[in-house]
Structure formats: C-alpha cells, structure tokens
C-alpha cells in the first residue's frame, strides 16, 4: 500500500488548480491513500476547499505566521518533519513546487522525480527530458520515499464532490530566519488565467512593440481567452514574464492555442504539446510552428488578427 502526501499550492485563500491535478496523478498509484497538507498562516478556507476533492482521504492543516509568504526554506523543514510514514510526497511542477520540493527531497536524503507526466507503478513514471524531445521512463529506488513534482498540464483536476476530514497539526521544525519576502509584483488582469484557460492566444516577436501587443489582448478578449507570449516577446518587454509559455515559462494544455507571429522554437513548443487544437498565424509558410499546427494560416498578422477579431466578436 502507498501513502501519498501532497503539498497544496494556494494563494489568497484559494487552492491553486495544480493541487487537484496532483491528486489526479497520485490517484494513479495503485492502492494509494492520499493526504493533502496545507501550510499557511490561515489555512481554513483552503483546507475546506481541498477536503471536497475526490480521492483525498485527509486534509492536514499546518498554520503558523511564518508560513504567510510560502518561502521554501520555511516550508521544507515542516514537510520533512511530517514525512514519516508516507511512501510518496508530491507537489506541482509550478514555480512554487519546483522551488520547494527539491529542498524537501534533500532534507529526506533522496533525489526528486521531476515533472511526472504518467504513473506506471508506485515507483515507475514517465517524464519529459531535453525540452520534451524525449520521454524517459524512470524508476525511483524502492524502500525510499518518492519525492516528486507533477506536470500539471498532463492531468485533469479530480472532481470536487467529496468530503474528507480536516485535521490541524503542529510541526516541530526549526524555522530559519535567513530568508525574507519583500514583495510580489504581479500584473493584475481580469483575463482567464493562462495555466487554466480553455483558450489561449499568444503573441511573439513579430508584434514588434508593447502597443501592438494590444492586438493580441483584443483578440483574446473577444474569445474570452487567456494571453501568452514567446520568450522573445517577453525579453523585448512587450509583456511581463508571467505570460511566457515554454520550457522555461509555463507548460499549458488549453483546448485551443492560437500562436501569432511565433516561429515555433522547440523551447516554445514544449509548453504547448498537450494543447487540444493549435492554430498558427505566421507570414512565413516554412516556420516550424506549422509542423505542429492543426490549422495554419499563412499571412501578415497585422491584417489577419483584426479581421479574425471582427469575425469572432
């Protein structure tokens, strides 16, 4: 029997959707009992929300003021202190999980399985390597706890129609004071979140300026879509970093992805492999993006995008 502990990601009193996807991944482990831990300064709302997720048999609350800013150096020793008895400890492969989980793994003396995309058995998984150009089947050592991150884009959230018990615990861990949160500079936007939106419209270097990127925002608004970008567009300062899609940005799996003025470098394609339908708009018919696009339209985006926006409004 396996016993899985999932570290919940949350913000502003809500669970991040990646948590329910981690549960879906853990549910693929044979005969798994799944617990979720919420570390917070006030975890009540998040814990109650997570308690409704199917397959979860217990939610554990760890409340202390130090947890307010979710610093890995603060959270890791608390999770490590409660690891005993668990065969697996999972977190999402978002920046939150990628920061935290390896620190937990090292405290427990094990390597981490990064980015699980498929569970083959309790210690056997598939994960992407080389920017997704290869899929590796890996085996974690048996007899040691498996610490892993879950590639959220590979999973659908479990349903939320259950009711697991919620329990509060204190962890006896030494909390360091060498790391301090100063501030979060987050762009506020009413658009659907890039990581969960059903439709995403992305723009690349071809947009040419922050002003021109408005074309992308307008089309996205007409479609009720989230907005993404290539690294080149972020580097050029057209949009903030949190919009970057790809190997070093966000890995997403919308039902519809529209790539506009993006060439389709492998590092970008890694981020959209699991999209349902990919549409590419590019003036170069030879651009690599057309190798993966389900529907391609060759032409000048400055003519096409306003016309498309008109047509879907």
């Amino acid at each position: 029997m396996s016993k899985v502990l999932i570290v919940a990601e949350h913000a502003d009193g809500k669970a991040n959707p990646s948590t329910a996807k981690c549960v879906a991944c853990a549910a693929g482990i044979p005969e798994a009992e799944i617990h979720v831990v919420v570390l917070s300064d006030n975890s009540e709302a998040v814990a109650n929300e997570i308690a409704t997720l199917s397959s979860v048999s217990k939610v554990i609350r760890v409340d202390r003021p130090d947890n307010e800013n979710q610093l890995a150096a603060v959270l890791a020793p608390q999770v490590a202190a409660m690891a005993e008895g668990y065969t697996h400890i999972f977190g999402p492969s978002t920046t939150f999980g990628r920061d935290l989980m390896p620190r937990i793994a090292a405290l427990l003396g094990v390597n981490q399985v990064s980015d699980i995309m498929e569970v083959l058995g309790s210690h056997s998984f598939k994960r992407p390597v080389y920017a997704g150009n290869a899929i590796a089947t890996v085996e974690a050592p048996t007899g040691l706890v498996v610490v892993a991150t879950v590639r959220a884009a590979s999973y659908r959230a479990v349903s939320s129609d259950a009711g697991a018990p919620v329990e509060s615990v204190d962890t006896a861990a030494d909390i360091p004071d060498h790391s301090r949160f100063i501030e979060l500079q987050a762009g506020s936007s009413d658009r659907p979140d890039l990581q969960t939106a059903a439709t995403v419209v992305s723009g690349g270097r071809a947009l040419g300026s922050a002003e021109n990127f408005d074309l992308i925002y307008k089309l996205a608004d007409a479609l009720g879509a989230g907005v993404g970008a290539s690294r080149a567009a972020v580097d050029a300062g057209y949009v903030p970093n949190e919009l970057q899609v790809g190997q070093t940005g966000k890995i997403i799996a919308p039902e519809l992805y529209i790539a506009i003025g993006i060439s389709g470098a492998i590092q970008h394609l890694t981020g959209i492999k699991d999209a349902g339908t990919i549409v590419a708009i590019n003036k170069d018919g030879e651009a690599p993006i057309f190798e993966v696009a389900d529907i391609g339209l060759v032409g000048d985006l400055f003519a096409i995008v306003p016309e498309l926006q008109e047509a879907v409004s």
Partner: protein
Amino acid sequence: MDKILVGLKRVVDYNVRVRVRSDGSGVETDGVKMSINPFDEIALEEALRIRDRGDASEVIVVSIGSSDAQQQLRTGLAMGADRAILVESAESVDPLTVARVFMSLIERETADLVLLGKQAIDGDNSQTGQMLAALWGRPQATFASKLDIEGSTATVTREIDSGLEIVEVDLPAVVTVDLRMNEPRYVKLPDIMKAKKKPLDMLALNELNVEQAAAIREVRFEPPSEREKGVIVDDVASLVTALKDKGLL
C-alpha cells in the same frame, strides 16, 4: 565577499534537435555539439560582474562529469573565471550527489555564494540548487532575474508563475538563475589563450568524501508522441469555419 562558486554543466547544445536512439537506450550524442548549459553561462556572467565590481575576490567554476567537461571549464576560464575544478566521473551523476559534491567544495573553499542555473537543459530536473541550499542549511533564491548584493545580504528578483517576487536572503546563499538575468559576454581569442594558463584542478569523485545517493534510474527513452498532420487554410473565413467545425467557436 570572498569566493563565488559557479556550476557549469556540459550539455547538448540548445540548438541541437535531440533525437532518441532507435534502441531507446538514450538520446543520440555522437557527433553532437556540446556546450555549457545556457543558464550556467548566465550564472557565470553574473559572478564575473559581481567580482569585477569588487564585491567578490574570486570566481571558481565547477563541473561534475566526464573529462570532456574540461572544454566547458576552459570556456568558463576564457570568459573570466579565476580557476576551475573538474570532479571527474565516467557515469552521469544524480542531482543529490552533485549537490553533495558542491557541499564538500564549499567546505574546502569557504564560498559565500553559489550561482547555478535554474535547470540543466538535458534532464530538465531543476533541483540541484535547492538541494544544495537544504544540505547547507542556507537560503535559496531560485529562478532569479536580478541579483543585488549589499554587504552580507542579497536582494533577488525571482520569476515566478504569478509575476516577480522579491526576496532578501542572508549570505552565504545559493542563487539559481533564469535567462533574463544578463547577456553573457563573448569570448575573445586572446582570452582563450590566457585561459590555457589558468588553473584547472581535476579530482576524482571518490577522492571527495561524498556519499553517492540512490539515483532515479532512467530505464528507457522514447520520442514524444507526434501530433497529426494539420491543414493550411486560405483566409480568416476558412479559419473560423474550421474552428466552428471542431466546436471551438
């Protein structure tokens, strides 16, 4: 600050289209261009700038791997690192063991800052820096796009999913760098000549008092599943029709 250690991993160049060997035993590396992991080049550039501002005395580049990694270390020396250490191992080394090697080098060298890449683009593990920080009991500032050092604290801007997070950490610390931190310098020919005379120490992994961790074993590789061939449409109207046919509009 005294010394900065920088990790330089030798990886398949990011421009190479990586292919899985037909027997599934790994990816094709014969005759393939190898380079410094791109994130590590940025880490080194940042270390050199810190030293050149007078905020550190020495930059030491470190690689753990086969003796071929001397090439990448020489490139690092040509970029401006003061010396290099190669910890030799014929087999590839797992991240936790790499972190333990760094820990043992930190003890030998008493480093105040370790700069690593946020991930190595071969295994895409993104775990070594965080592990090292845990073993060391020191702060970690991951996915950094800006690093300011003042006295014994570092202020770091981190690229995270929700935007930019600014944290302050006490030194010594581990910082893992993202691509937007800086633009690495080009190496000039005279620098390559000079680099040949800089010290490059070779150590065998088993000379260091490092316990090897149990690796996550890679048992098989396969190419990713391919998407079905798409269609090219002629105009916006046909695009809209195609999307409607799929129920997407």
